[in-house]
């Protein structure tokens, strides 16, 4: 451990005995798996209720063991390796997708210091001075699993699904990363436990609402969930990157997706909703809400709330089209988060310099108004480049009823071309040259 690492990371990490580390690692792994099984059941139940159905019911009490039964069923299915597959990559890909999802959990704080078998330890496997950066890095490795799965299947749909998935994830990772920067600005640290501790007074979701919203949109894009589940759009790509996977290999992709959901929900909880800290009405009434093992309950409830939002969105929103999806990511979220970050930084710098609150508000509001005025001016000066309007001004395309080889009726708004008729010859004046009259007459008739 380096000196700076010691200085930046919260005190008390990296000092656990080996069996405690092993115990915590096993518990976290079990937590992820149980959360996955529960989330699948919960999702099916909630979506069923939203669609006036009952959902899984017969396997265990209220169908609670349904996802476990599905797992056993998948284990008993035939394990197929497609003929055109690149065997080694095809087999490794599910593991590459799954392992990073679990590894991201190493730095998620579940609670403060507690005592396990007489040892004081944090309810967190470890903490790094660059914990959030580590999560981003590990999440990016998870993308490899999906791309390689699509590429190695040797089939059209998985290839397209894998590419879409990677393009989607890297597009939304930028907005996600930019929304984190505002949090670091306030907390002065990238260590997850310190970020939680810094939210003792106010949650960052309240201080930085725009960052929070950008993160929530980006996290749904990151996890390939509805309404952004384009890599698995069954209407277009069958199953996306896992079309050719069966048996437990398919189950591993499923596991990775749900663990990723829990990871991004945990990250949202940690960075924006005060992590394991109790919500304010509880802290006002009850002194001991943030001590002992109780914080784990608050953490769990907040994560569950996010997972419910995931399910809710899936139950209510239709899927985006791919170009709309990329447009939101590149043209809305990125400029928005950049501008917001610079705004937050300006306010904070002015505050640090010791300016009064009212003056800061005045300056920032003035700057925003000036920018808006400039953009209005820009719109007024530049010619209107709306392509649709241009197309309308140019008039409808000439309609050719015989284009397909047989006659078709015109669509609404289309005009049938004038029927070519033989020109009725006007009585010619005597002595005029007939050859000069004829072409002029014909054009008049056709127009």
């Amino acid at each position, binding site marked *: 451990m380096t000196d700076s690492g010691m200085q930046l*990371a919260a005190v008390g990490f*990296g*000092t*656990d005995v080996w069996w405690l*580390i*092993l115990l915590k690692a*096993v518990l*976290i*792994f079990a937590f992820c798996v149980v959360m996955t099984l529960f989330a699948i059941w919960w999702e099916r139940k909630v979506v069923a209720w939203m669609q006036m159905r009952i959902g899984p019911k017969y396997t265990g009490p209220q169908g609670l063991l349904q996802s476990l039964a599905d797992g056993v069923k*998948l*284990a*008993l299915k*035939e394990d*197929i*390796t*497609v*003929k*055109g597959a*690149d065997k080694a*990559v095809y087999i490794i890909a599910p*593991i590459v997708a*799954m392992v990073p999802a*679990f*590894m991201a959990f*190493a730095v998620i704080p579940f609670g403060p210091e507690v005592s396990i078998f007489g040892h004081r330890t944090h309810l967190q*496997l*470890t903490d*790094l001075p660059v914990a959030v950066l580590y999560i981003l890095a590990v999440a990016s490795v998870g993308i490899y699993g999906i791309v390689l799965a699509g*590429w*190695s299947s*040797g*089939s*059209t*749909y998985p290839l397209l699904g894998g*590419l879409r998935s990677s*393009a989607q994830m890297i597009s939304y*990772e*930028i907005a996600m*990363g*930019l929304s984190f*920067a505002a949090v*670091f*600005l306030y907390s002065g640290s*990238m260590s997850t436990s310190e970020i939680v501790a810094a939210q003792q007074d106010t949650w960052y979701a309240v201080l930085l609402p725009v960052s929070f919203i950008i993160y929530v949109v980006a996290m749904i894009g990151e996890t390939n969930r509805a309404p952004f589940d384009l890599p698995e759009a069954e209407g277009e790509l*069958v199953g996306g990157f896992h*079309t*050719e996977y069966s048996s*437990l*290999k398919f*189950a*591993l992709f499923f596991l990775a997706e749900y663990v990723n959901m829990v990871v991004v929900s945990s990250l949202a909880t940690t960075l924006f909703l005060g992590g394991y800290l109790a919500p304010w009405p509880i802290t006002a009434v009850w002194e001991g809400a943030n001590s002992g093992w109780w914080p784990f309950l608050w953490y769990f409830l907040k994560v569950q709330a996010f997972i419910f939002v995931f399910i809710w969105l899936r139950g209510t929103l239709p899927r985006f089209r791919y*170009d709309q999806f*990329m447009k939101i990511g590149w043209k809305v979220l*990125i*400029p928005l988060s*950049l501008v917001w970050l*610079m705004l937050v*930084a300006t306010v*904070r710098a002015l505050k*640090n310099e010791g300016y009064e609150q009212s003056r800061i508000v005045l300056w920032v509001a003035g700057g925003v108004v000036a920018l808006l005025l400039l953009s209005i001016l820009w719109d007024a000066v530049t010619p209107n480049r709306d392509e649709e309007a241009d197309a309308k001004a140019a008039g409808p395309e000439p309609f050719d009823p015989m284009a397909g080889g047989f006659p078709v009726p015109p669509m609404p708004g289309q005009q049938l071309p004038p029927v070519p008729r033989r020109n009725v010859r006007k009585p010619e004046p005597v002595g005029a040259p007939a050859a000069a009259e004829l072409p002029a007459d014909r054009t008049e008739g056709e127009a």
Partner: protein
Amino acid sequence: MNLYAPILVLGGIALAFGVVSLVMGALTGPKRYNRAKLEAYECGIEPTPQPIGGGRFPVKYYLTAMLFIVFDIEIVFLYPWAVYFDSLGMFGLVEMAMFVAAVFVAYAYLWRRGGLEWD
């Protein structure tokens, strides 16, 4: 113990779980292969012939990946700046504003040239 060792422990457990499930999946499932089953799935029609490991794909994905690298590097610059923001003071704000403005010009150019269009 090192700060990073526990991560490897957790990764090791996940890896072991993955390998065990792959082996188990191969052992427990039935094996009744036939030729049609091993073909790539393409809605029931003859699968498109593919070179080993997948075919061609639109170049737009390359463009997206390149843009991602540009912006990701910007984020890498932003993080340490954000963490040490309070000690950098006004100087840090102005410096970063200049950097972000430079990237923003590139972004505006990209948008104008249609690099962000996806048809």
